[in-house]
């Protein structure tokens, strides 16, 4: 048991050290992509908890991230607090909103829940992030500018210290991911998964549905918000566009594509979401055999759609889930590990 824990801690450390080095030596654009990848990975991780573990649907995860981002921006630009304090406020704001969104989820499920959360995303997109009434929160049309932030008392300038922001983000992600993996196998994780598999029997076996569903929504929103809180630091300002409705939809699509039940799939999805569009815009135009071509960002959306369809048919458990199953199968076939050798019928 504890050896498994040691293994996970070790894996997280290795992942951190390897990933921390990757952007070194690349240009600023790529460093920005790397940081953005972690932010998106937080969003996907929040879905691993909510959908993968608890089986609830949400199409407003980007809204949670946005609330985290704006609250942080407000604290840093408006009140000049330390960045970490601001992140704390951002996460708390996202958590609160998550719990509130969780209330309708107590009664709804499936498609109705999807529509309700979609509505919430739409409302925030249109009437909070872009409305005059909430200028105190959003900093107006220009958004909050976060040029000079301090973290642990150290200067964290967005343009110059992109790398340190990335490292902090990555470290946080590794810790949260580790906690998530632990949670999965723990008592609380079993209760959450019981809700996913059968709410009916979970309730009659003593699981307090109200409490655990609200908790799940709150924690999930907090995770998305944690990622979002770093957006002002990485980008230098907050704007509504990254947290609009469509990002929420992309979260859902890519989480399913990569394997919504698996924590590492979130990291994979984050990279996919941040890097592929950038690569497309950078290298997506030129001439090929005398013909000029241009692959715009729109192609990314179409590609995600097509990949999703292919995945649903070919890899129903997502890219990561399928990889994992293959590795396990190969290992048990090789006799290395007993697997599930139980008589089945």
């Amino acid at each position, binding site marked *: *048991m*504890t050896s498994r*824990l040691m293994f996970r801690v070790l894996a997280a450390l290795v992942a951190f050290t390897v990933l921390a080095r990757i952007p070194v030596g690349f240009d600023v654009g790529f460093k920005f992509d790397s940081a953005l990848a972690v932010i998106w990975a937080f969003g996907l991780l929040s879905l691993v908890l909510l959908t993968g573990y608890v089986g609830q649907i949400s199409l407003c995860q980007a809204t949670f991230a946005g609330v985290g981002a704006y609250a942080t921006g407000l604290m840093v630009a408006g009140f000049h607090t330390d960045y970490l304090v601001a992140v704390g406020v951002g996460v708390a704001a996202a958590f609160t909103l998550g719990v509130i969104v969780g209330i309708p989820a107590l009664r709804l499920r499936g498609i109705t829940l999807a529509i309700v959360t979609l509505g919430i995303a739409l409302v925030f997109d249109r009437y909070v992030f872009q409305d005059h009434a909430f200028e105190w929160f959003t900093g107006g049309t220009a958004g909050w500018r976060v040029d000079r932030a301090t973290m642990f008392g150290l200067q964290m300038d967005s343009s110059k210290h992109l790398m340190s922001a990335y490292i902090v983000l990555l470290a946080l992600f590794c810790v949260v991911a580790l*906690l*998530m993996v*632990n*949670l999965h196998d*723990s*008592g*609380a*994780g*079993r*209760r959450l*998964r*019981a809700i*996913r*598999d*059968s709410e*009916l*029997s*979970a*309730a*009659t*076996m*003593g*699981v*307090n*549905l*109200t409490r655990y569903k609200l*908790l799940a929504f709150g924690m999930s929103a907090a995770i998305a918000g944690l990622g979002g809180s770093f957006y002002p630091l990485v980008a230098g300002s907050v704007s509504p566009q990254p947290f609009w409705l469509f990002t929420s939809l992309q979260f859902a699509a890519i989480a399913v594509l990569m394997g919504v039940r698996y924590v590492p799939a979130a990291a994979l999805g984050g990279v996919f979401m941040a890097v592929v569009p950038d690569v497309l815009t950078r290298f997506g135009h030129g001439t090929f055999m005398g013909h000029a071509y241009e692959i715009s960002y729109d192609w990314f959306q179409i590609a995600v759609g097509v990949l999703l369809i292919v995945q649903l048919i070919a890899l129903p458990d997502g890219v990561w889930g399928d990889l994992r199953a293959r590795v396990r199968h190969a290992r*048990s*076939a090789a006799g290395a590990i007993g*697997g*599930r*050798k*139980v*008589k*089945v*019928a």
Partner: protein
Amino acid sequence: MTMLRVRDMTVRFGGIVALDGVSLDLNRGEILGMIGPNGAGKTTLFNCISGVIRPDHGSILFETNDLTYAPPHRRAQLGIARTFQNLQLWGSMTVQENLMVPMDALGRRNTFSDALYLPFSAYAERASSERARAILHVLDLGRYARTLAGDLPAGIQRRVEIARALAMRPKLLLLDEPAAGLDAQETAHLAELLHAVRERFHVSMLLVDHDMSLVMRVCDFVYVLDFGKLLARGRPAAIRNDPKVVAAYLGEESKKLTGDVMTVAAARKEEPPLLEVDRLAAGYGGLEVIRDVTLSVRPGEVVACIGANGAGKTTTLRAISGMIHPRAGHVVFAGRDVTGSPAERITKLGLVHIPEGRGLFPTISVEDTLRLVSNSAGHEVDIAPAFQLFPRLRERRRQLVGTLSGGEQQMVALARAILSEPRLVMIDEMSQGLAPTVVRQLFEIVRVFREQGIAVLLVEQFVESALDVADRAYVFEHGTIALSGPAVELRSDRTLVTGSYLGTAADASTIAAANGNGHHIDPALMEVMSVRVPAKVKRALEQRAENEGRPAGAVVVELLGKVDDQ
């Protein structure tokens, strides 16, 4: 002392009154039986007691707590556990994890300390997993501890449901058809288990089942529901002979078929087989479950597959119908090789498979489910015959299939199969969840099939009934066919059946346990049901049978006749 006091429970679903002013008292340490026709409201009453639905009217008092408005998890904390008629295990979790959820949901566990893996959580974790393993061991489920619950066959899932309920250390246990899909021997074990649980843990129980042998054997008192109302209540023996109960639920004994079965079977001998299965092998993952299964079904023939749970009957049907891919062997249906063809293609050829889980879509109405048949057949099919067969479904035609009672769902599955005008129907666990009167009716339907030239391949835990209705039977053992022959012969030659199918079980108790329920009943054997015949007696019986050159079953019946006379 009254432990549970239910007063005036009333539940309406739209126009349907599922429960109509039912009151019930359960004393501490008592096992209370509840029987009644399909859709009588038994499961609905369970739902009210466990808090899954709110009654429109009435109150529930448990010990000193008024439960009428308590949420389900609160009732669990107070000590009410239940099992579900349509299995509700957490399929993607291992069996052991399934048991651990109720254990620590009731303890004081903290989400954050769990995620951080603090020593307190680690300690609680070990304690829970050890207790889970102990319970699994007692219920003889130890070897499935690490299997995903969803991968298990239905019979074993049902036992895991009981294990999970016991893991809560309940004071009151609500069991909804725990014996469905269990064979006679397993039902006998279940009865023993329930007695043992009561003795050891002082658990009171409320038991719903259509298997009268179980109800008669374990219950102190029986309530009978009909159309949501209390029809009768009393001691098991009195209930059994209550004319009202017989009329509404148990029904009259059916007369036994004899000679004519042989002639029908003989008449079909010349026709070429409709289904031919040759040395079929199939399995799941790294495991081969059946091998070398060779069988055939002629047009209009009724063939029974019997054998203990886990012998491979369900897997055989799945491999034939294309639900799983055979690993070796051939399946030839209506002259065509359909080995490994997709299930839809095989269905189109006229082979209909009614799987164990019934394979219905819960969010479609009864009527639409039946109409879908006509759509897939490519032309409109009149669905009226289905309602003639099961009049109950007519009243429920607009209801969503998922909200039907367990027995009503089984009726829909059967009706759907019949409407598709099949040439061969394969029915897994045919009588599961059906009331005795309906079971009897069903066996009549199977006979009608035969007259119309529709072949039937059925899996049935009630061996006696299956052999009564079938022309021929195959006896499965450890994933292959151990024995086959005309049903009449298998029926009379009980040593054959007991030898392979019933294993080491004592003849008399298993024969007896197969009774009740619209299945053929030997009254003398009902009496000795609770007596476990010791191994010595069994050996003596077999010896005597050998000396006299006739089946041991015949000897037993004769001996019991003598006992009765005294």
